[in-house]
């Protein structure tokens, strides 16, 4: 993805992760800033369906050629779906971080945690 973008329909965590809320299910991923800082993602091993995420804690790793980076969960919940397509095509995390590069979907345990997340403008201003 050539140019920085931060869709306004998403919520953001300061550790460079986004959440798309749909009722009590949130789709999670990393932001344009995070994928740009990482470089080419070459490996993503998704966590197991049924595992839990805790807001502010790492729930997975993305790997570039040179380094491993933790992915921080913006919200707490139970993982109900993972993006298995990233197994063959991890570069989607770079090319389409908010679409095809989504990482997991979680059923939220506390929707009020979204109050602590940032809107696009606030997150982008913090960079």
């Amino acid at each position: 993805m050539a140019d920085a973008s931060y869709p306004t329909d998403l919520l953001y965590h300061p550790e460079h992760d986004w959440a798309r809320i749909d009722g009590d299910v949130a789709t999670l991923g990393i932001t344009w800033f995070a994928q740009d800082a990482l470089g080419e993602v070459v490996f993503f091993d998704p966590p197991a369906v049924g595992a839990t995420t805790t807001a502010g804690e790492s729930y997975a790793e993305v790997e570039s050629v040179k380094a491993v980076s933790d992915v921080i969960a913006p919200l707490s919940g139970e993982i109900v779906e993972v993006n298995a397509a990233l197994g063959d095509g991890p570069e989607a995390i770079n090319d389409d971080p908010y679409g095809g590069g989504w990482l997991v979907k979680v059923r939220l345990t506390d929707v009020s945690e979204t109050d602590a997340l940032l809107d696009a403008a606030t997150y982008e201003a913090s960079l």
Partner: protein
Amino acid sequence: MAATPRRTPLFDRHVAAGARLVDFAGWEMPVQYAGIRAEHAAVRERAGIFDVSHMGEIETSGPAAAALLQELLSNDVEQLAVGGAQYSVLCREDGGVLDDLFTYRLAPERYLTVTNASNHARDLAWFERHADGRDVLVEDKLEDFAMLAIQGPLAREYVQAFSDAPLPERFTVATRELAGHTALVCGTGYTGEDGVEVLCSPEAAGAIWDESVRRGAEPAGLGARDTLRLEVCYHLYGNDLMESRGPIEAGLGWCCKEDTGFIGADAVRAVRAAGPAERLVPFTLTGTGIARQGNPVVGGGEVTSGTLSPSLGIGIGMAYLPAARAQTGEAFEIDVRGRVRPAVVADRPLYERPTA
């Protein structure tokens, strides 16, 4: 507070080319420009150019130069002819490896040794300490040289176009005028591809870089340098070589000639005779995942280098394994941050140029 990193003469060009810079051994160096995999492919398919000016140089000259080097370097310096290049390791008395080096013989009594950036100060002190009292001059030439590596199947063609004379063959060195600037051109490299390494004055580096790039050599950074060398199983000091292990364990017995009596020779001879307890071997992951430096091997051993191989598309690396397991075809497991990943010992090199 860390000292401000140093910059090579090519720093402005790296910035202009969009490089992502990192602090490496106290130098602000390009890790990548277009991307590690694109740069890796450029070197394998055409030519890439690396700024390796952070590496150090030590010149050893005088009547006792050969004798001093014979004592310090593991290889047989008597076999190094004028205009030749020789690889060796530098060892402690107990055989532990201090550095791996290339030495070029520029004249009957004048040698130039290229050191790893992270070890330069230590190597220089080691050379100077052992030179004491002998008829030899040891000089730090770090500030006198910039160094570029142009590597790939088209590298020689590109550089030949602006050289005043045929480029030296593999493992030889010669003085040439490149783009009108005097340079030492060496038929050496760290990528497994053909090419040359150029030692020139800092003032000449820009012109030689520009000329190379103009003809098609693509800027390549330390990230690609690591994936390229690991695919052909070249050692990296600080990963595969360290003071706590000797050259026999590392598979570098071939460049050790104990009969020359180098510092550490007795220890190396003993390990060679008894067989080392562990050996450095190349491996591939047989499933998904990427092994990294420091990952333990289940049952004993450790990964010292690991990455995703851009050419092979799988995780590769090198690891020290107990000698009994260090055989091609041996299946083993690597603990990658708590997840056990299967691997297999492979032959070197892990990548070979297709011959068709």
